[in-house]
């Protein structure tokens, strides 16, 4: 199997080369047999990359240390589940995962469009094959997972302890599914530009793919936050690390596109902008991968450094050049087909929503790359860390939150003064009441007060939208409230699924604002000693050390401290925090000690304990952090994912037409 996998990688290279060549040739010469061959090559590439992936998994599971990759990322005593996930622990394995997922996506796109978008498909197939070809070339010539060692070591290096976590099993594949999902809309955009078929037709094909990309990008980011929180011990879930930023950039641009696409569908506007967003999302995904792979910027993900940076940079430059040329030569085909009737309209609010999303993306990209620019200009190394990103992005984020509440309240085309008054009164009152109540209860942090006021406002908007929709169904069909709510969402998945995503955004912002009240304490305790602290809610906590213990587990030597936790005098549980020294099958330490954070989770706050060190036999140095509302981050993310699924879920054509889903906006709906 391993040999078959190794050979399959090279055959996939040939298949992708063939698919690219005959795809473009078939499109150009309009030769149906070449087009059909390119499409079959796309299926074959997927098949061979599947075999290549199975081969690598087999080598990993059999601990075949004759392969450099297996020896570098596993050891004989590594639990089997982590031998499976070691597939994407290193450079070449994760590149193979990229190529494999991309070929799978390509095969699905080709299959689902076998009788649709036929004018576009030759170029879609060829573009996807070209991207796959780049990855397979990088694998074959730059970073081959099947590279063999001159000798077979007795054991492997083992897997980085930080990657021995369930979060790492699912976070990278999720993120890759999101990243790579941007390739399909990109291929459709390139095909639409080449064929000059830039009407709304190609947008319909890419909307669902963008949603797929957005969905996995969202879940990937949230899972990554969870992994960072429970595994790294920094005390937070987002550190504005360059690689975190790289994952955030396509998300922001995809989110902007999912809003602006509505303007083009309903009003025929923003055509240039939408093409730009679609291609930018893909280019940013490649840029993100370049940042991750090249090590050009110092990052926590530096374990993935290697020599493929130049490959990615070359591909990025080529992709930008092709895209800029195609867009520049087709600007006339991208002119708007309609006029804006008022500045106070849904479409105008979407423009500002896009401006903020792209503005945040620019600020994040700028901050991420600025150290390179600064060093090139001043020859000084500088750091652009969380203080910068927080200062720049917090006001932009709050403005975006405000627009999340404003957008749905403004009608398409034109909103009258009466309409605005009727729509805004309720949500504004909810927002002001929220802010005033929190101020009355003693909250004095300005940023948090603004955030919670806006959260109240946006919640008011969402509740009002559901309330009106349910009310309308109850009047029209005589349904009870629950049935009306279920059917309202089911019949208008795009709109109300979107509002559910907005609920998730509100919950996330509420959680982010909670960080303003985070409290940290350095604690040194001997066995039997206790430490008292007050949390942000004014509760009196007492932590009693049960002492330091040391023992062996699976593939590690563990040093653990147990704390009895008391809140307001009542025992509420035990928190265990650990340091782990991982060893190979011969008992030789493989990596430096890793943190295993002790977390007592709660809906109001987490108690987060990190063992920083042990002095002598029984004295532990710890950091105890009260992290308010962290739980809300995970559930906000889940709500967003559920909303995304509802929006994505296929809808029967008949119902779609009933809901006004795929039809041009009718005058009666304009005042909704």
């Amino acid at each position, binding site marked *: 199997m391993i040999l078959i996998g190794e050979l399959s990688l090279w055959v996939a290279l040939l298949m992708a080369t063939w698919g690219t060549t005959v795809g473009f040739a078939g499109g150009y010469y309009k030769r149906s047999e070449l087009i059909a061959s390119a499409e079959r090559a796309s299926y074959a590439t997927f098949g061979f990359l599947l075999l290549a992936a199975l081969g690598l998994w087999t080598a990993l599971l059999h601990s075949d240390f004759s392969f450099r990759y297996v020896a570098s990322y596993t050891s004989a005593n590594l639990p089997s589940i982590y031998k499976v996930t070691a597939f994407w622990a290193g450079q070449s394995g994760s590149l193979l995962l990229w190529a494999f997922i991309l070929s799978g996506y390509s095969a699905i796109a080709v299959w689902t469009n076998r009788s649709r978008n036929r004018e576009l498909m030759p170029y879609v197939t060829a573009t996807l094959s070209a991207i796959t070809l780049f990855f397979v070339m990088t694998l074959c010539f730059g970073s081959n997972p099947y590279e063999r060692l001159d000798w077979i070591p007795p054991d492997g290096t083992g897997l*980085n302890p930080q990657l021995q976590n369930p979060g790492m099993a699912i976070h990278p594949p999720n993120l890759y599914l999101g990243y790579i999902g941007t390739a399909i809309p990109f291929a459709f955009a390139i095909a639409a530009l080449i064929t000059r078929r830039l009407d709304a037709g190609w947008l319909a094909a890419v909307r669902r793919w963008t949603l797929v990309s957005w969905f996995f990008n969202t879940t990937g980011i949230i899972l990554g936050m969870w992994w960072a929180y429970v595994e790294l011990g920094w005390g937070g879930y987002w550190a504005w690390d360059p690689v975190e930023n790289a994952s955030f950039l396509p998300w922001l641009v995809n989110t902007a596109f999912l809003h602006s696409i509505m303007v083009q569908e309903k009003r025929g506007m923003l055509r240039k902008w939408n093409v730009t967003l679609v291609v930018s999302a893909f280019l940013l995904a490649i840029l993100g991968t370049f940042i991750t792979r090249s090590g050009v910027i110092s990052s926590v993900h*530096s*374990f993935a450094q*290697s020599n493929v940076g130049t490959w990615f940079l070359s591909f990025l430059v080529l992709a930008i050049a092709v895209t800029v040329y195609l867009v520049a030569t087709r600007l006339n085909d991208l002119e708007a087909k309609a*006029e804006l009737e008022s500045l*106070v309209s849904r479409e105008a609010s979407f423009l500002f929503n896009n401006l903020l999303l792209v503005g945040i993306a620019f600020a994040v990209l700028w901050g991420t790359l600025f150290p390179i620019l600064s060093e090139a200009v001043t020859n*000084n190394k500088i750091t652009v860390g969380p203080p*910068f990103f927080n200062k720049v992005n917090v006001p932009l984020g709050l403005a975006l939150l405000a627009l999340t509440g404003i957008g749905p309240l403004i009608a398409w085309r034109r909103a*009258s003064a009466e309409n605005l008054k009727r729509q805004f009164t309720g949500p504004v009152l909810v927002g002001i009441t929220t802010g005033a109540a929190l101020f009355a209860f003693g909250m004095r942090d300005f940023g948090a007060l603004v955030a919670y006021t806006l959260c109240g406002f946006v919640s008011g908007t969402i509740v009002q939208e559901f309330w009106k929709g349910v009310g309308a169904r109850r009047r029209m069909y005589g349904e009870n409230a629950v049935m009306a709510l279920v059917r309202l969402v089911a019949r208008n998945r795009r709109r109300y699924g979107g509002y559910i995503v907005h609920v998730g955004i509100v919950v996330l912002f509420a959680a982010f604002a909670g960080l303003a009240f985070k409290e940290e304490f350095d604690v040194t305790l001997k066995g039997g000693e206790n430490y008292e602290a007050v949390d942000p809610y004014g509760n009196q906590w007492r932590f009693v050390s049960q002492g330091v213990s040391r023992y062996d587990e699976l593939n590690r030597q563990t040093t653990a401290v147990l704390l009895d936790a008391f809140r307001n005098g009542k025992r509420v549980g035990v928190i265990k925090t650990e340091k782990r020294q991982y060893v190979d099958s011969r008992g030789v330490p493989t990596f430096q000690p890793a943190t295993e954070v002790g977390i007592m989770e709660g809906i109001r706050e987490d108690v987060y304990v990190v063992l920083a060190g042990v002095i002598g036999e029984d004295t532990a140095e710890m950091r105890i952090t009260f992290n308010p509302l962290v739980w809300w981050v995970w559930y906000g993310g889940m709500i967003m994912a559920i909303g995304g699924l509802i929006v994505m879920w296929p809808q029967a054509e008949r119902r779609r037409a009933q809901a006004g889903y795929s039809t041009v906006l009718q005058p009666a709906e304009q005042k909704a």
Partner: protein
Amino acid sequence: MMGRRRFLVASAAGAAGVATLAIARAAGAQEAGSQVNTGAANAPMESDRYKPVQLAAKGSPVMNQAKRDELEHHLHCQCGCNLDVYTCRTTDFSCEVSPAMHRDVMALVAGGYSAPEIIAAFTNVYGDRVLMAPPTSGFDIAAWITPFVALLAGIALVLVVLRRLRGPALAPAIAPSVADATPTEQARLDALVRSDDR
């Protein structure tokens, strides 16, 4: 003569070229020094990156522990990690740099120095790389200004686009809307207003 569109494309290409060269240079330097298949956690901490920051005491402390911890969130640990001094020293079992930097901070706090004075002392010894955010002077102020300049430029662009998109249909937005008109009446009104505008 070069048209506006061509000029924009040429400018973008030029800027992209300069940026690419800078990134390629950085990537090349990085690749030259990178080692394949070595985990970051495997790399030894470079304790020699620590440099003493010491000043003679000038008075009694003006900062409490919370403010000192907050200050340490603004100093970049020099061990090679991406963390601030506080987070690194309270997380990383094996780092020798952040505890040493912490000791210097404690000594300066005990010597009566304020947060800005301590940050200045660290910057004098390590340079700007000891800060967790770019300085607000010299070239690096561009880091802070550019996102907002870009946003303002974006707002201006959006307003220009909106003006272009509005075309002759601006009048209905300004004219009082007839909220209770039926869709048919509203459409007829819109058509009339448009014909008036022409």
